[in-house]
C-alpha cells in the first residue's frame, strides 16, 4: 500500500496542445482531426499559431473515445451523439439554474 499526496491537480482551465489532447483522450489523430473539422471539438479562441484546447475539448474527446469503443460508432454517428450529449448537458445546466432560482416551499 502506498500513500500518495497528490499536491498538483489540474483544473478546468488548463490548456492542452493537440498532441496532449490526443494522448489524454486515446483517440487516433485522424479521428480528432475529423471531429475538429466538423466542429464537434473546438479549440480555445485562437491565441497563437498552435491550436490550444480546454477542459471541454478533453471532456468531449474522452466521451468520444468511450462511445466509439462501447458502441462501435462511425464518425457520423459519433458527431451526432456528441452533439446531442452537449445539448443534454446545456439543458441540464439550465435546469439546475432554474431549480436553484426556484424558492423552496416554506416548511
Amino acid at each position: 500500500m502506498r500513500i500518495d499526496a497528490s499536491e498538483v491537480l489540474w483544473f478546468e482551465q488548463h490548456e492542452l496542445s493537440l498532441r496532449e489532447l490526443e494522448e489524454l483522450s486515446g483517440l487516433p489523430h485522424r479521428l480528432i482531426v475529423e471531429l475538429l473539422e466538423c466542429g464537434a471539438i473546438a479549440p480555445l479562441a485562437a491565441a497563437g499559431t498552435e491550436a490550444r484546447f480546454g477542459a471541454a475539448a478533453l471532456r468531449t474527446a474522452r466521451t468520444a473515445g468511450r462511445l466509439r469503443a462501447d458502441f462501435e460508432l462511425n464518425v457520423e454517428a459519433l458527431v451526432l451523439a456528441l452533439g446531442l450529449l452537449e445539448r443534454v448537458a446545456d439543458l441540464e445546466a439550465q435546469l439546475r439554474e432554474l431549480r436553484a432560482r426556484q424558492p423552496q416551499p416554506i416548511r
Partner: protein
Amino acid sequence: MKYKDYYASLGLERGASEEQIKKAYRRLARKYHPDVSKEAGAEEKFKEIAEAYQTLKDPEKRAAYDQLGSHAAGQEFQPPPNWREQFGETPFSAEDLDLSDLFAHLHAGGGQGRRGGRMSMPGHDYEIAVAITIEEAFHGTQIDLDLNMPEYDAEGRLRRVPHVFKARIPKGATDGQRLRLPGKGGKGLNGGRDGDLYLNISLRPHPLYRASGHDLYLDLPLAPWEAVLGTSVELPTPGGTVRLKVPPGTQAGRQLRLPNRGLPKPKEGQGDLYALVQIVVPSVVSEAERELYRKLSGDSAFDPRAHFTVETGHAN
C-alpha cells in the same frame, strides 16, 4: 479469484449465439451507458456489462472463459491447471486478481503477444465520482481515495495492488467539474505513459444553499411587516454571516444580490450569492395580533388584485 457469470450479466444462456450476445449488449448498453443513462448505479452496471461483452464477443476469449467451467457468481475458484499455458497467458497470482484482469491481458495478440514483448501500452485511466459539500467547495478539501489497480510486480506477475490517495480538491470546484490527477491511474507498460485519475465533482444538496455554477441561491423569508417597512437581516453565507439591508417595499420573489459571496472560482473571482425573498405569515397568531391585522385590513386601501379587473376588461 472470484468467479463472475458473464452470461448472466448479459441475461443470456451459456449457449448463446454471437448474434444474441451482441443484441443483449446493445440493449443493455443503451440502458446503462454512463454517458447516456441517468439511472442510479448505471456506471457500475455498465462496467459489468462491458466486461462481460469484451470477453464473450471475442471467440478466443469466450473459449478461454468457458474453459474456466461454471461456478456460482462470487464463488472463489482457480483456473484449471493447464489453463494459462493453453491461452498464452501472462503469469499472475490468482488470489489478488479480478477476473477481468485475466481477460484484459489475455489477448495482446494471441500466443506471440505475451507481455514480454515490446508493445508499449498507456496505463488505464480511472474516473471517479466525488460528492462534496458546498462548504468543502468553498474552502477546498482533501479526500481519501482507495483504488485497486491491476499491476505487474517485479517478477512480471499480474496482480491487484491497492492504491490509497490523498487528493486535494482546491477551492473553486463546483457541480460537473473535473479534476485530473496526472499519472495517478494505472501503470503504463513498456514505456507507455501512466494513466490518469479523473475526479468528477458533484455538490451534495445543502439545507440552505442551492448552487448554479459558482452562484449560490438562498431563500430569505421575511415577515409581511419586514417586507413593507424594510429591515436589516443577518444572512448566512459560506464565508460567514453578512448583514443585508432589505429595502422598504420589498416584494416576494425579488432577488437581492450579494456580489462575490458565492463559491470561489478556480483562478480568481467569486460567484455571487442571491437571497430570494419570500414573504411568510405566522401560522399561529395571538388575539392581540389578530386585532392589529383587522385594523390594518380596515384602514388599508391596498388592492393586491387590482390588475385582475384591468386584465379582464372590467368584468366585475
